[in-house]
């Protein structure tokens, strides 16, 4: 068969001309609103968060107390870390299903290593590294072998979950004094706001991720890949390295999340973190990151986690509402955000 080199694809041209028509109108609209449309989804998340806070504050006493809000961070610190890692992956247009299992693996390894007397200072970096290595393997599968992220991370999930049970099928309590001391360290900000080690770690991770995404070429390449892998390549950016690295980051975050979870629960159990990857994905999506990649902010993901946490808090406060409403609310919220994103995307192209 003859190779015909098409010198013009009619499809590309049509989309191009269409966005060209809408272009000026959109710009005008955005200028009028004084809000860059890139921030619209995050703004939506913020509005939802504020709404829940207001409704909660009106309906329940003590809802807006510093204690409740501080606990929101304490109880969700590990999820914040997971969501941060997931944000990197989703920004490139990928997905990571392995984080829940890797979190469990890290927690179980930590507990098991501490139980057999390995010093804390060795255990802490080691279990985080476990996550990084699994992330690296996944990244290699995705990039070198062109396995779809969905399947590659699914394999990673099965692998990590299986390893958990090989290490210890039953829950291992953590009694190492140094570890417990680190876990139970806390400080009070302004005398009312309690911060634990895990909250500090989570906030540091968020700050680091923010720096990476917005102030380094690596971070901008992450966005560029999400905007168009082909374009990024033609712009001469290091696509291959970046694509592998996002999975390493996600894995590392999952490893760190496992450590935080071990601090939180003072134990390592191989069944923890089941379906936690879904919470992380949901938080990222609700936080305004678009699953096809290229648009979103790590701070949005933090807001997403807080929304999820607040829904839980509201349901606890309500008392009569059963816990399953959490899932239904999250599902409904997901639906709203996804449809909203779809509408925004449809208006753009």
């Amino acid at each position, binding site marked *: 068969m*003859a190779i015909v080199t*098409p010198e013009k694809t009619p499809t*590309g*041209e*049509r989309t191009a001309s269409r*966005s060209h028509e809408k272009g000026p109108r959109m710009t005008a609209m955005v200028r009028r609103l004084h809000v860059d449309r890139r921030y619209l989804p995050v703004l939506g998340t913020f509005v939802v968060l504020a709404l829940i806070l207001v409704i909660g504050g009106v309906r329940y006493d003590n809802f807006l107390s510093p204690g409740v809000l501080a606990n929101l961070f304490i109880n969700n610190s590990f999820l914040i870390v997971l969501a941060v890692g997931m944000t990197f992956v989703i920004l490139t247009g990928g997905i990571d299903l392995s984080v829940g299992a890797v979190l469990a693996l890290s927690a179980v390894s930590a507990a098991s290593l501490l139980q057999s007397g390995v010093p804390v200072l060795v255990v802490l970096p080691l279990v985080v590294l476990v996550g990084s290595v699994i992330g690296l393997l996944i990244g290699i599968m995705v990039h070198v072998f062109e396995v779809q992220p969905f399947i590659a991370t699914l394999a990673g999930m099965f692998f990590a979950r299986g390893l958990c049970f090989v290490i210890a099928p039953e829950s291992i309590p953590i009694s190492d004094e140094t570890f417990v001391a680190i876990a139970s360290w806390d400080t009070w900000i302004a005398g009312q706001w309690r911060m634990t080690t895990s909250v500090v770690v989570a906030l540091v991770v968020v700050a680091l991720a923010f720096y990476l995404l917005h102030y380094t070429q690596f971070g901008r390449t992450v966005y560029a890949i999400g905007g168009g892998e082909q374009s990024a390549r033609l*712009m001469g*950016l290091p696509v291959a390295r970046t694509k592998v690295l996002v999975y390493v980051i996600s894995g590392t975050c999952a490893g760190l999340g496992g450590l935080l979870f071990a601090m939180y629960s003072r134990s390592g159990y191989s069944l923890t973190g089941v379906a936690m990857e879904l919470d992380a994905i949901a938080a990222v999506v609700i936080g305004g990151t678009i699953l096809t990649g290229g648009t979103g902010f790590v701070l949005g993901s933090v807001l997403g986690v807080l929304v999820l946490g607040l829904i839980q808090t509201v349901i606890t406060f309500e008392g009569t509402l059963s816990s399953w409403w959490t899932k239904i609310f999250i599902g409904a919220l997901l639906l709203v955000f996804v449809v909203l994103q779809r509408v925004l995307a449809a208006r753009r192209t």
Partner: protein
Amino acid sequence: MTNHETATRPVVEMTGISIEFPGVKALDQVDFRLFPGEVHALMGENGAGKSTLIKALTGVYGIDAGEILVSGTPHRFSGPGEAQDAGVATVYQEVNLCDNLSVAENIMLGHEPRRLGAINWRATRREAARHLSTMGLDIDPSSSLGSHSIAVQQLVAISRAMVVDAKVLILDEPTSSLDADEVAQLFAVVRRLRNDGVAILFVSHFIEQVYEISDRMTVLRNGRLVGEHLVSEMGRLELVSTMIGRSMEVLEDLHVRTDHAVDPTDGAAPFIQTVGLGRKGSVQPFDLEVYPGEVVGLAGLLGSGRTEVARLLSGADRADTGTTRVKDAPTRLRNPRAAIAEGIAFSSEDRKLEGVVGDLTVRENMVLGLQAGRGWMRRVPAKQVDEIVDRYMTALNIRPANPDALLRNLSGGNQQKVLLARWLATAPELFILDEPTRGIDVGAKAEIQKLVADLAAKGMAVVFISAELEEVLRLSHRIAVMRDREKVAEITNSEDVGVDDVVELIASGGGR
């Protein structure tokens, strides 16, 4: 403007470039040179090798033979990144930037000013603004690229090229989706860059634009170099006939020709009639009538709007102005299904993307159109399928004659025949054929031409598009001439009309 001819060395010198794809010589011993401070147009019809030549230069394709000198030193780039580093930047027709990022980032990505290792955004925006202002662009560098028109995006892409201090700027069909004002804006920038000594390689299908902006041109045909000319010494008529080529010796002895003496429009009602049908950014409003038993040829260069007309008539694209009547009843062809229901079949020029369902068998591909019309529940009876397959396998001489072969394993010509069979099986009243003979061997070509003539003789209305004017002339009763996305003329075919007449119409724009 041509003083560089003797004074300077070319910045790009390609000699004896050959690239072979399986079964096809995409480039055959092509020489090309590009001087600093000139705009050099690369001309040629579809498949002439323009894109391949550009890709050879930028390292997207490796070359099988030849030498590439950039600034006097031999280079074989491994990819666009490496070419960029050597000062060869490309701006593609579909802007290859990230529209989710800001304008400033798209310009500076990878070259951002740093402070303590971190990207210094203020300096980045300032730098970007500086580059934008040299383009004469006054836009907010922190606005997102996607919020700007394609024209602005093109200029941003050029700005990016200037950040890396490109000595050579390749513009691959930059104007194909721009309106007149935007083209003027782009050309102003191009002229400024040329005066600064940048060598610009310009690819466009718009002849007038080529004459407006270029100093020199290289014409390619079928992967070979036809000639290098100063634009001022090359007439439009000469250019068009050089591009199209007249060496159709093989086809001369195929005496397929519709009977021009018969006038199907005589006393009959048109099958389809459009008034002011058009689509913004695609094709200007046009009037067209096609009668039963008539072949209407669309003549024009690539990008002239000939394909766009076909897409509007077949519902592949939706028109945004004008009206269509089918058999004298007003109709809106909203999508291909609606057109098919009206008895309109459309064979797309992009066989691979829009025709072939490669992993299905020949048999399945043949009945796909008919089956789609019936829905999934009512399967086309096996007997009817066998009939269809038997009839067209023989009638179209499809090789191999194995209906259970996967379509992707057939040659281009046979794939095309299977696709024609798919449409014929739906018994259409109007058959729109966009480049049905492109990229297939001569034998299959002759068979398809004969088929078109026969179908018309049996009363089918046909719209026939081809880059080869001889083919259009021999088959059509009437010819609509397209140029720069506009229908510029319509002529009734006769023995007296020759290729020259049509070429002249294309070149002159129908005297407008």
